[in-house]
């Protein structure tokens, strides 16, 4: 049972240093343990129990809207459209071309012209008939839009990276707890058989006592988006630049900045970096270490690696080299008696073949279907999806803290209870970044 823990929502943790109120450690650890217990054994609920067999009456269908649908969003939306107990009704995008493309896709799917189009997500979110939203805007908007949606009473499936900094990560978890809404981060590898199997080995002690987790963040560089020379701004109906910028600090229109996938990824001076892939592979390490309610306490750039350490002594190594070639996004879990490595090709390398005994066929690639289904089941049951806001919060914090260490070029120590860096004003100032008016989280 997840403990009632309103105290965890107190926002003082991110006030400027000297103002924070530490919460009770025992209370936190208990809550964190309970939160992870929920994730430890996700229910495998048969379809008939959840009313997914046979025709779903219109009144029982989940009504979905989508916000910011480009390449990845279109893939996600396709996964949603395959689900029989779902009806997609509205698209919001600041780009006209995307609005039209998604409307065409939806109308073709349903054989009508009903899909509504919006430029401003607040209009879509004000629709009372919409139960849930898919958010795939690009990282600049992910957290702000998710929080807006939750405050408007919607459940949210949001692509990753879900947040731009530590403050947004905490705000995300707090908001979804406060509103009682369902959140699923688009970190679908948690549901994929090969990663789930490796995590299961780690968590069930089949590798012996865990000591080192390895993640391939796909880049240990930190990034920031700049201010490019002004170009003629297109009409709002074509591209709404103001809404595109949204919570990002103002700058003039420049078409090169319209790449929502990378724009303001991570924000600040130390964004991007390990967020893009770390939100997957670090997230998997978090789960393997039963650490969904916490984050590593130390982060240090060493050579080409970023080395972190959890309070339970387990090491987390983010590195780009030395992998076994099992496809993108590999992870490796090492214990005292064995190790396992897996990646997107769905296969394994193991210390002993015995670890794989009875292993069933794997799925290559990283389909999101299972995650979408998990989300929709939780929309119905009000349970917590595999990558709920709490889990996503701390996976992202681990990545943000790593980025801060990379930017500062030195070791930083983090207190995942107070959610502040220990005795480190520079690092603490990088936990948060003001949003452009009028947006807030």
């Amino acid at each position: 049972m997840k403990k009632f823990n309103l105290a965890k929502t107190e926002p003082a943790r991110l006030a400027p240093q000297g103002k924070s109120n530490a919460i009770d450690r025992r209370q936190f650890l208990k809550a964190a343990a309970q939160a992870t217990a929920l994730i430890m054994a996700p229910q495998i609920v048969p379809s008939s129990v959840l009313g997914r067999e046979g025709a779903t009456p219109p009144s029982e269908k989940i009504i979905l809207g989508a916000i910011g649908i480009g390449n990845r969003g279109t893939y996600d939306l396709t996964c949603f459209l395959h689900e029989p107990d779902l009806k997609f009704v509205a698209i919001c995008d600041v780009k006209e071309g995307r609005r039209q493309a998604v409307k065409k896709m939806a109308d073709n799917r349903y054989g009508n012209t009903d899909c509504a189009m919006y430029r401003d997500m607040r209009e879509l979110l004000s629709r009372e008939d919409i139960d849930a939203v898919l958010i795939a805007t690009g990282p600049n908007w992910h957290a702000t839009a998710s929080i807006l949606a939750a405050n408007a009473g919607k459940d949210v499936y949001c692509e990753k990276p879900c947040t731009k900094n530590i403050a947004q990560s905490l705000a995300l978890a707090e908001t979804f707890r406060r509103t009682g809404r369902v959140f699923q981060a688009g970190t679908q590898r948690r549901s994929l058989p090969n990663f789930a199997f490796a995590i299961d080995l780690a968590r069930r002690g089949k590798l012996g006592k865990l000591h080192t987790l390895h993640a391939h963040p796909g880049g240990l560089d930190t990034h920031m988006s700049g201010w490019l020379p002004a170009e003629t701004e297109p009409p709002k109906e074509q591209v709404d630049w103001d809404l595109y910028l949204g919570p990002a600090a103002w700058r003039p229109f420049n078409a090169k900045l319209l790449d929502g996938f990378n724009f303001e990824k991570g924000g600040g001076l130390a964004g991007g970096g390990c967020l893009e892939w770390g939100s997957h592979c670090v997230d998997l390490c978090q789960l393997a270490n039963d650490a969904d309610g916490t984050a590593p306490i130390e982060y240090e750039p060493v050579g080409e690696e970023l080395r972190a350490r959890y309070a339970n002594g387990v090491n987390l190594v983010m590195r780009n080299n030395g992998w076994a070639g099992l496809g993108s996004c590999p992870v490796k879990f090492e214990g005292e008696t064995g190790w396992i490595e897996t990646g997107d090709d769905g296969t394994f390398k193991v210390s002993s073949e015995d670890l794989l005994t009875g292993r069933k066929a794997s799925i290559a690639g990283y389909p999101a279907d299972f995650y979408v289904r998990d989300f929709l089941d939780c929309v119905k049951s009000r349970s917590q999806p595999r990558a709920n806001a709490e889990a996503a919060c701390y996976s992202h914090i681990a990545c943000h803290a790593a980025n801060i260490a990379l930017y500062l070029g030195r070791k930083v120590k983090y207190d995942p209870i107070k959610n502040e860096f220990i005795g480190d004003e520079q690092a603490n100032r990088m936990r948060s970044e003001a949003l452009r008016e009028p947006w807030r989280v």
Partner: protein
Amino acid sequence: MSIMTLTLRTLSQRIVLLSLLTVTLAAAPVAVYAAEGEPVPAAESAQKLVEVLQSNAPAAEKAIVCKKLAIYGGKDAVGSLAALLSNAELASWARIALEAIPDPDADAVLRQALGKLQGRLLVGAINSIGVRRDPKAVDGLVAKLNDADTDVVSAAAAALGRIGGDASAKALTQALTKVPAGARSAVAEGALRCAELALAGGQSKEAIALYDAVRQAELPKHKVLEGVRGAILARQSAGLPLLLEQLKSADKAQFNMGLRVARELPGREVTEALSAEIKQVAADKQVWLFLALADRADAAVMPAILQAAKSGPVKLRVAAVTALDRLGSTPAIPVLLEAAADNDLELARAAKNALGRLPGKEVDADLLGRLVSSSGKMRQALVEVAGQRRIPGSLPVIVKCSEDADAGVRLAAYATMGGMGGESEIDSLVKLFVKNDARKERAAIEKSLLAICGRCGAAATPGLAPMLKSEDSALRILALHALSSVGGHPALEAVKSALVDKDSAVEDEAVRTLSTWPNNWPEDNAVAEPLLALAKDGKSTAHQVLAVRGYLEYVAGDKNLKNDDKVTKIKEFMPLIQRAEEKKLALVTLGNIPAAASLELLGSFTTETALSEDAWAATVNLLRKEVPGVSADLKVKTLQSAVASAKEETTRKNAEKALKAIK
């Protein structure tokens, strides 16, 4: 370097690149950092940053300076940053620094901005006050609750919620009924945040008052329900009646919030009350409540769930069994086993899943004990679960089950032996194969044998080789299949020995086995030699065809062969290929080998009438890749020839696409 995204790995890179950014963006670099090594001390650095803000530097440069001041700026930077709060382009950048600078002066300038700014810029300043949780700003923010601008009211309410305290609570409670409808949800959000702070500070009475004010206000339903959630949780076990009220409600949103809170509200008495409630709620809601109870992971819920798992509507039994998946332990085993042996397939599957996941060695011991003494469907279920759990010491019992009188038990035992068994089970499975004539059973036994052989690898070969000397042809064919699963040199030699057999069916199977030999190249590349021999002198056309296909697969797959060597091998092999079908296959293979020699060889076939179209298709496919040694000019000319000469429309279109990509 991308203009938009800077890559800042090392400190020195960072220094250089930040300077470059300034150059790129503003064409007026300012030396903010030392040239190499560590940044200059923050105070000195900050002073230079402030000078940029005070200069006539372009807005782009000042913007980036604001970001740096968020890390390095102090009291001295506040005044220059405050001056930008009324600048529509730079206010958001200035607030990035002002929100981060710990000095109280930053609070002061934001408070002063309350009286100076309007519209969105005022909203921004208020939001920053909220982030900084400045208690001295409460009066100013309370005044803004009466502003004519709804966005300002909303921002002020949210900020007051973040700051908390009695004055904020009072103002927000009053505002819930007074502010325009457009700002009321934001006021409710502020009140909820304020309540959380009160609760965290031990003021549960004040928190409850705020939650009650929200749930009783005229608000959108989801906001009311957020108030209900808080009101229940803040009351702890005294909130139970309000929780039950939600669960009894016919309103879906209310019921759903009840389900959410049913997972959050702690206490054994709560669990017991919710367990009792299952019997009270409508049948279509029972399932959801079961799932919520399971999420509580509270042992007090077990009696109700065990009872539901035993009998009642199947849907509810399945839900209860699913719940036991989370909660169950040894006492749940009899109930789950009964369900696992049920005729309803979904119920049985759910129960077996649950049994497979119950934690604890004592569960293993209990199940093993039952397996020994069970029979019929129960035994079948236990065999499956033993396999799923890989229960230590269960394999000998499962091997015995493979000779059970019940066919269902036998089939389950074969499958489990395949999953758990090792070399020592090979002999048992072979004997079972000989003993059973039924096609279904033999197929199941073979599947298990292949699984074991695949896992054991070469260690399995000694156990399989004698089978090839058996008088039973079926057994010799089984051996070939099993050796194929093993792979490697000894297994290959054994299969080669079966190319001459007294039974032509065995010979056919030996050729088929070689033609699909496991392509763990280069370990298995020794298969090339017998395939080449078969392609030349195979006893029948079928043997030759299979050998040709197998050989082409070997050439394509062997990672030890260089691309040029692959092309040479295919060139030498082509004369041995009799049928057009395999020649076309060879062309496809060439089209996937990125080498200049491939292009040359393919070119020689574009003039052969029977192969021309396939040669062009393979050529186009090849030229869509990077091909070392083939110039862009040659690519273009060849593709243009394909457009002009190919008759297949798809080939022409692909060629046009490739041309377009080159251009």
